């Protein structure tokens, strides 16, 4: 059974003393799972459909990335506040220790939530998260974000010409909708990079030892944005964590290697 896009509903949850109305996409049934999206914003893709087959998936939109509410981002001053906002959101949704899957920027969010508020989550899946820094493995975030758009696929995919990769970056078929789509896409990156600029290092490396839930770390070996060297940096700091490396796979792993990515995640969540 697959969840169709029509089955995804939008819940608006007031948090942060009413100053934020977070949009959360919800689908599926089963134990709760929160998905934290990457830098570019939330796209309901086949990975989320798969997750929704066995979980009730809650996918919040980062403040400011919901269309029509760009300045919501101003209500969140720091990355620390963002973590508190999500703590409140999980409470407001009535979720009791949900699992969390975080990708890239969202991986940093999920990892720091687990480190900062140890009893909030039950399980943690980190898909090529940012959050650490090594001088010998620089993360070319500013180059990607401020560089020519035609370079973007090279940072994200091992196979930029694949149908899945092209689908992920596709613009609307209707030319009249393209400017709005580009504008929203750029603004989404502005909202997330507020807490990742120019280097996404909020001291997570000094807190990761506090993560006390079963943790899976998944990385593409050909990741051109966040080098695979960071897999062990996360793995070695989180006791008992498991690291899965995927061959022939870049940063957006669900596009490059959907089957292997899903196998790693589902094995872990089912175990």
């Amino acid at each position, binding site marked *: 059974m697959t969840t169709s896009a029509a089955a995804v509903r939008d819940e608006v949850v007031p948090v942060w003393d009413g100053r934020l109305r977070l949009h959360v996409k919800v689908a599926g049934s089963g134990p709760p799972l929160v998905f934290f999206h990457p830098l570019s914003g939330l796209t309901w893709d086949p990975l989320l459909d798969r997750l929704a087959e066995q979980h009730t998936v809650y996918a919040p939109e980062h403040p400011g990335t919901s269309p029509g509410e760009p300045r919501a981002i101003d209500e969140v001053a720091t990355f620390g506040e963002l973590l508190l906002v999500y703590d409140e959101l999980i409470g407001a949704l009535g979720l009791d220790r949900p699992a969390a899957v975080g990708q890239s920027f969202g991986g940093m969010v999920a990892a720091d939530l687990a480190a900062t508020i140890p009893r909030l989550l039950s399980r943690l899946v980190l898909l090529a998260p940012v959050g650490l820094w090594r001088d010998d493995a620089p993360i070319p975030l500013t180059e990607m974000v401020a560089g020519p758009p035609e370079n973007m696929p090279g940072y994200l995919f091992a196979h930029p010409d694949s149908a899945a990769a092209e689908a992920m970056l596709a613009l609307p078929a209707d030319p009249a909708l393209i400017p709005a789509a580009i504008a929203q896409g750029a603004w989404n990156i502005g909202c997330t990079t*507020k807490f990742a600029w120019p280097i996404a290092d909020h001291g997570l490396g000094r807190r990761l030892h506090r993560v006390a839930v079963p943790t899976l770390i998944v990385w593409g070996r050909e990741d051109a944005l966040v080098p695979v060297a960071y897999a062990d940096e996360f793995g070695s700091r989180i006791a008992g964590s498991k690291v899965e490396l995927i061959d022939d796979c870049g940063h957006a792993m669900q596009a490059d290697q959907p089957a292997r990515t899903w196998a790693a995640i589902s094995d872990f969540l089912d175990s």
Partner: protein
Amino acid sequence: MKVSLFAQVPYRYLPDGFEERYSSAVTAPYGLVEPGRVHDSMFSAYAELMAGARAGFDGICVTEHSQSSYDMAPNPTLMAAAVAAATRAEGLDVAIAVLGRSLGKTREPLKIAEEYALLDVMSGGRLIAGFPVGLSYDANLNAALPAIETRERYREHRELILRAWTAPEPFPWNGKFEKYGQVNVWPRPVQQPYPPIWIPGTGTPSTLRDILANDFAFVYLSWDGPKLVGREVFDRYWELADSLGRDRNPYRVAFLQVVAVAETDERAELEYGRHLEAHYRSGPGAIPGTMMAVPGYVEPAGIEAMLRSGGPAGMLARMRTASFRDLVESQVAIVGSPATVADQIEAFVREFRIGNLMVMLQNGSMPRDLTEKNIALFTSEVLPRLRPIWDAEGWQNRWWPRGLPAPVQDRAVPVGTEGSTR
């Protein structure tokens, strides 16, 4: 009207084809330069500003850009300080416009309050204080501040600086970005309550409204000349002024124009053509469009409008391959004999109601002798035609420096010079 000389500090010896291989901002490789030629470029810029001050310009103007090959002016108050001191010593009564320190880029806004105040004191009240947001590449890549906070920072910093200049007592500042226990800036500007404030902007309605509401001057740094968007920007500006109850005083606005004058149109093309082409191609044309709007710098509605209109990024892309003909026909640069140049300038000055004109007379590889010829011809043949344009309307230029306040006794006049008085 007031006519000022505007200068950037380009490295004048970039290799041919620079723009095909490099960006002129952020990543321009410093290995291309020869240190002696950096000195030559820098000192020539200073000497030309002084030549302009001596030749009769009303003011000199400088801007800030870090990590740039087309404007080696990471802190324009340094160049302005040299000109302020030298013009003071020579008794030249020229305004010093810094257009300016970027308030959305700085991590140390009180340093700007102090530097501007020092310039105003040193020059004897001749400072024009420019408060630009800062270009996206400069604020968000060079200074690496999150793009989405650029304008918030700008607003906080401007408020802090104005308060630091005017507060009678030391005060605490608990801002979002800056926190201080006791703000008590020494020195403060000699112009009271503070120097004229000029705000560079691209002409978006929100910026224009802010400028008009605060009674600041609007600076349009028109890299694309008057023809392409000038009409739209200034129609919008004056309509907003009407709706906010502001008068149509032309001194509310300042406009920058690139100009090259020779004896005849033909000689102008011959002498300036290749330098102008090289400037647009290797300077503004070699800033990648994406660096001008790092995601978060412009709100979604602004990006949409930019994409639908072709926008500044499109303009920069065209400059990368611009020919002399393109530049002249679009009036990106106004080039020719004194009569040609004066006619074209006078037309847009009257149409847009520009009271403060800034002209940029040096570009890219243009050498000092040619620039000084441009300065001499412009000041002797063109400027006299422009200066009286608004005289008949009788407006007061409230956005021009006021000099030393009357009660202050000048005790520091160098031997043989007169103090700057207005």
